[in-house]
């Protein structure tokens, strides 16, 4: 039977929509000439992408010597960027998979764009460990392939090796999940199009017809992929945290890392979803599908995960003191009051203190504050990774090898350029694909549309014994 609809739930689709209106609203941005805003945004993103290509080329040509890494600090902005980008990816999978299993209907408004964000963020993330190798053409060595040196296999005990499999599996599964969801919507765009666009979308739609059996299989597939993606997304950042946690570096080898990293990943990912969706809903006129209710729900997740991250920071400090272990205590004293104290307070301020304003409903529903906060959190989460990586390495066991690190222009350009890569991909997606899942929105219209539920409902519920969906409205 259909899900029970709580009378306190606010509508998730507003504007008295019909099925056809939903198709019109969501397909039209892909059909119209690009707006001036889009063109300006695209040129800006592509410029940063060019900067990325240039700085990657520079790094490969000149070598890692063009960065400021040294004997003591071997991981700097590169690995910080890697962990930051992977983390951002996590919100997409959380929205599309975990919220699907929990039957959260508000996911339908944002899941498509969030999954796209995941894929592009993982693309950005995956570049950094490879660039960091310096001799990028040796990247093939990270895979266990038959070779003429024995064959000599990779070290299956190494978390860096686990990471290769975690990130590549995550990327592949996310891509498959996202594309399978897109196929019926590409068919919708195909059936409205003519000329070359019809040809393009015919190819993208893989021959979708909308047959009942196909929908049944499609739902079965989506559910299992969601079930697989849920432990997968938890495993990915767990394994990323193993890169640090399995080492013997005080400040890194803590058992709290896996849950702490996963919470942080979801936290930063939701912040990026907010950044993107607030711009999308405004420029693509999707306010009826990505409502204040959606924004508020995501702000609640941000508040929760931000607070979990805060508890993790404090737990680390407490355990360092409680351990009675001098090196651990020093690592954390150094983290707060050492040469990088500013990044620690930047992290605390952005990630732990500032999200607390979301306890107030008015702020959760304010677009201006949400946008501001989302940027803030993204900066804060970047600082978190920098704090963990650079401050820990800067003060190692031997005071004679203590060091300080600040990036060169190449490292800064690599980071800014990766933002260009991300936004270029996202803008291409927003131009060619429906950014809101059309079929999924239609399937919740009668349980979450403002013309069916809530005080403004205009359609009296039908009492038709054949419909299970209609049972939900019997309380009106």
């Amino acid at each position, binding site marked *: 039977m*259909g899900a029970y609809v709580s009378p306190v739930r606010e509508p998730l689709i507003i504007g008295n929509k019909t*099925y*056809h209106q939903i*198709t019109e609203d969501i397909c039209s941005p892909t059909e119209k000439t690009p707006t001036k805003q889009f063109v300006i945004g695209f040129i800006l993103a592509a410029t940063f992408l060019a900067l990325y290509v240039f700085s990657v080329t520079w790094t490969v040509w000149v070598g890692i010597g063009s960065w400021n890494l040294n004997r003591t600090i071997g991981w700097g902005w590169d690995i910080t960027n890697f962990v930051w980008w992977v983390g951002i990816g996590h919100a997409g999978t959380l929205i599309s998979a975990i919220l699907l299993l929990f039957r959260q209907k508000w996911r339908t408004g944002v899941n498509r764009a969030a999954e796209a964000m995941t894929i592009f963020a993982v693309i950005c993330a995956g570049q950094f460990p490879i660039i960091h190798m310096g001799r990028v053409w040796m990247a093939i060595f990270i895979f*266990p392939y038959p070779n003429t040196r*024995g*064959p000599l*296999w990779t*070290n*299956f*005990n190494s*978390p860096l090796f*686990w990471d290769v*499999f*975690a990130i590549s*599996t995550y990327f*592949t*599964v996310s891509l*498959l999940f996202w594309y*399978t969801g897109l196929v*019926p919507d590409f068919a*919708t765009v195909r*059936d*409205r199009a003519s000329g070359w666009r019809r040809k393009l979308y*015919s*190819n993208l739609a*893989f*021959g*979708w*017809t*909308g*047959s*009942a*059996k*196909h*929908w*049944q*299989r*499609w739902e*079965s*597939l989506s559910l*299992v*992929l969601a079930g*697989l993606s849920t*432990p*997968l997304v938890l*495993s990915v950042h767990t*394994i990323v945290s*193993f890169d640090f946690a399995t080492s013997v570096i005080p400040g890194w080898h803590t058992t709290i890392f896996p849950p702490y990293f996963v919470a942080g990943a979801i936290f930063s990912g939701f912040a990026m979803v907010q950044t993107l969706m607030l711009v999308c809903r405004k420029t693509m006129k999707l306010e009826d599908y990505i409502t204040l209710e959606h924004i508020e729900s995501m702000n609640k997740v941000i508040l929760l995960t931000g607070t979990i991250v805060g508890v993790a920071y404090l737990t680390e400090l407490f355990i360092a003191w409680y351990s009675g272990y001098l090196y651990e205590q020093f690592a954390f004293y150094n983290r707060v009051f050492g040469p990088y104290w500013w990044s620690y307070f930047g992290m605390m301020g952005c990630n732990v203190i500032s999200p607390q304003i979301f306890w107030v409903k008015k702020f959760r529903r304010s677009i201006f504050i949400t946008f501001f906060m989302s940027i803030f959190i993204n900066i804060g989460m970047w600082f978190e990774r920098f704090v963990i990586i650079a401050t820990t390495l800067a003060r190692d066991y031997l005071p004679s090898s203590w060091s300080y690190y600040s990036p060169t222009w190449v490292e800064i350009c690599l980071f800014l350029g990766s933002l260009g890569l991300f936004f270029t991909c996202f803008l291409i997606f927003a131009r060619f694909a429906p950014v809101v899942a059309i*079929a*999924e929105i*239609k*399937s919740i219209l009668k349980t979450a549309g403002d013309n069916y539920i809530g005080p403004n409902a205009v359609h009296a519920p*039908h009492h*038709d014994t*054949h*419909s*299970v*969906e*209609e049972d939900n409205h019997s309380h009106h």
Partner: protein
Amino acid sequence: MRSLNKNILFGLYNDETELLGAISKAKKAHLDIFDVYTPFPVHGLDPLLGLEESRLHQAGFVFGLTGTLTAFGFMSWAFVKDWPIIFGGKPHWPAPSFIPVTFELTVLFAAIGMVVSFYTVCGMGPGIKNPTLDDRITDDKFCIAFDTSGLNSNELDEINSFLANTGASEIHTKYI
């Protein structure tokens, strides 16, 4: 474009409630429905049409198990038999170390296997174009289709009047 070589008589409905009502009436009248096409997954449709539950998830289990065995088996073979290496005096068969990659390959095999199976059994894939009855079926129309090949005029009339009486807003025929 693939062809099914069938003459299809179909009715378009404006709402899934009407569609579900019409299907249960068709069932009572013992009409043989060829297929039903909808713009989104309509709940309650599968039991009405008598569709059996999809076995994709069972296939997924088998694919996943293949991944588990491949990963764990390969790493064990490489480290124990093919080239045993001592890492810090640890045992040659460090099973806990194999868990992350084994898990990832389980998920990877299950996902790829299921997605490939899905497109194969649905007759879909890159470059494949299946015939469609009406462009609005992916927008806001709900379609019940009957295969009229080999039906006599009485049976055709029966289907036509069924579609008209159950609230189909449009009735068409198409060779696909």
